[in-house]
């Protein structure tokens, strides 16, 4: 697959923005500067980036509780994201959503969701809307290995299969549902195996290889746009941080996984691997990479400053936005 330089660099920037943003959110959460709890996706940058890079602006996605990366990959603005996490009125959702629910509907994101598995039928419906409206937009649905045990997973794959809906079900399999190892609660070794039950393609990719994710998604998108129906794409990956930031305080350092396992996955860092690819295979200069890293850090500093300096919502806002009218 021939991928242009702009696309290659756009993907690198996306991964850096996710890494920097998530690292900062983790630090701010641990420092007690933001309310509530946060789920970060450090280590999973390649799946969100590779999938969204294969989409058009008018294509839609659904996201989940670990959704910051999806929004960034789809083009989210860090300032408004950070402000939302701070609960400020300048945030994407005016402070009504918070970390688990930051979205920009104008980017075609139909909700980040606090309910595991909730995004799957919504994505099927979004794809259905394209069919009803006679458009060829597709919908990508991000969910985890845990969600694949929800009834909504099975109902949505069946529905999308029988109606041949233009949807790509993207399972970011990071090995854990909250604090429970996937293999102890899941009947299959690979989530993609479940595609067979619904007579749709099930594809497994190295979720830490952004090019592989991008290429597999592009194929699934082409199928979907051609009216050939859904694909289940499983991205094998790993979350470096816990289920929720700060979990060590209540479950200890090695409550459910060994440090050695985390270190092993860190050696498979999707960003370092992609950098190596860019430098050696794609002939991108080190200077270009450094420039993107520097720009991203500056952007993030601005975002934190913006969030800190923004006002909290006026309490009169508590009753707005329930209904259109």
């Amino acid at each position: 697959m021939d991928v242009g330089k702009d696309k290659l660099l756009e993907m690198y920037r996306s991964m850096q923005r996710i890494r920097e943003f998530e690292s900062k959110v983790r630090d701010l959460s641990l420092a007690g500067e933001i309310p509530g709890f946060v789920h970060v996706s450090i280590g999973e940058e390649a799946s969100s980036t590779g999938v969204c890079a294969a989409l058009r602006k008018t294509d839609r996605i659904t996201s989940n509780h670990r959704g910051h990366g999806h929004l960034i990959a789809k083009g989210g603005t860090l300032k408004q994201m950070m402000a939302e996490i701070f609960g400020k009125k300048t945030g994407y959702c005016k402070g009504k959503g918070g970390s688990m629910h930051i979205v920009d509907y104008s980017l075609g994101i139909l909700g980040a969701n606090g309910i595991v598995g909730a995004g799957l039928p919504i994505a099927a419906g979004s794809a259905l809307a394209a069919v009803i409206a006679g458009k060829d937009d597709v919908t990508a649905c991000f969910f985890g290995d845990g969600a694949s045990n929800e009834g909504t997973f099975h109902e949505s794959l069946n529905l999308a299969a029988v109606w041949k809906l233009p949807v790509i079900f993207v399972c970011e399999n990071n090995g854990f549902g909250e604090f429970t190892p996937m293999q102890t609660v899941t009947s299959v070794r690979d989530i993609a195996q479940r595609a067979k039950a619904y007579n749709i393609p099930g594809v497994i990719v190295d979720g830490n290889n952004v090019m592989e994710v991008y290429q597999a998604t592009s194929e699934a998108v082409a199928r979907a746009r051609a009216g050939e129906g859904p694909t289940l794409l499983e991205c094998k990956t790993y979350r470096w941080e816990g289920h929720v930031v700060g979990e060590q305080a209540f479950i200890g350092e090695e409550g459910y996984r060994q440090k050695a396992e985390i270190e092993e996955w860190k050696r498979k860092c999707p960003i370092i691997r992609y950098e190596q690819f860019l430098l050696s295979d794609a002939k991108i200069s080190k200077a270009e990479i450094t420039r993107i890293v520097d720009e991203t850090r500056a952007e993030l500093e601005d975002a934190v400053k913006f969030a800190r300096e923004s006002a909290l919502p006026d309490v009169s806002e508590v009753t707005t936005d329930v209904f259109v009218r």
Partner: protein
Amino acid sequence: MSEIYFTQAINQALFEEMERDPLTFVMGEDVVLGAFGATRGLIDKFGAKRVRNTPIAEAGFVGAAVGAAMAGTRPICEVEFASFFYCAFDQVCNQAAKLRYMSGGQAKMPITFRAVYGAMGGAAAQHSETVYAQFLSVAGLKLVVPSGPADMKGLLKSAIRDDDPVIVFEHGALGRTKEDVPDGDYLVPLGKAAVKREGSDVTLIAIGAMVPKAMKVAEKLAKQKISVEVIDPRTLVPLDEETILNSVAKTNRVVIADEGHLRGGAAADIAAIIAEKAFDSLDAPIKRITALDVPIPFSPPLERAAVPDDAEVEAGVRAAVGA
């Protein structure tokens, strides 16, 4: 104006609204056949793209309606029996109801859900429950309970055009009721109660299928010089408090008739509003006539005992006026 059945009124509203807006479509269990008549014939006019049989998978297809609404279409989603909503509670209560608010007003959720509720003769507890109270305390849903064919048509058309999620509850026993219904574009606004009959001695607030019963009772009592004002809220959310409170200020006595349960029901909710806002107007305790707090039983005498009938409504009104 033509005299048509409740079910035909639904059918008429669906035809008209689907004709009016190409982004409306109908989905649900057996909507192609139109098992109960409401969606019959839509397939011939609008085709398979816009009239979609779903698998029996409520979480899946209700969730899909949510996604389709947010993505710019206007789904009309039928959940055959209202008790089946329990299988899709997340999709209705966590998703449809909340995503607009949680996104700070970004999401628009123009879905109409239709579902049959109520005791209709031997359907037993999982097909006979009056479930709207379960949604009353979920902020973000509009709840519509039509009491006859004309309102059914006018309210359903308004619901379909509404940009928020609306659940229209259709009582199974009303399906074969008949009345004059305006032809063509007849709209009944959401949030406007109907004063079905004016009176001066007592306000009888009746919901859904209790309205025809309340009218019968009011007519009978009129002959005995008890003047009953019958109010049909028509929509529980939004609720037309003004019409209710004005009536209470006039009659000073209130009876609420509802087929839902006593505890935590719509009658309890309306009673609380009246007690809070019109306590000084009341000359007698507010009386609720509701179903017993039991699952609706199967056997006909048990079913009749569980849900309120004309006699209970009449007794309630007599108690309120001390007659």
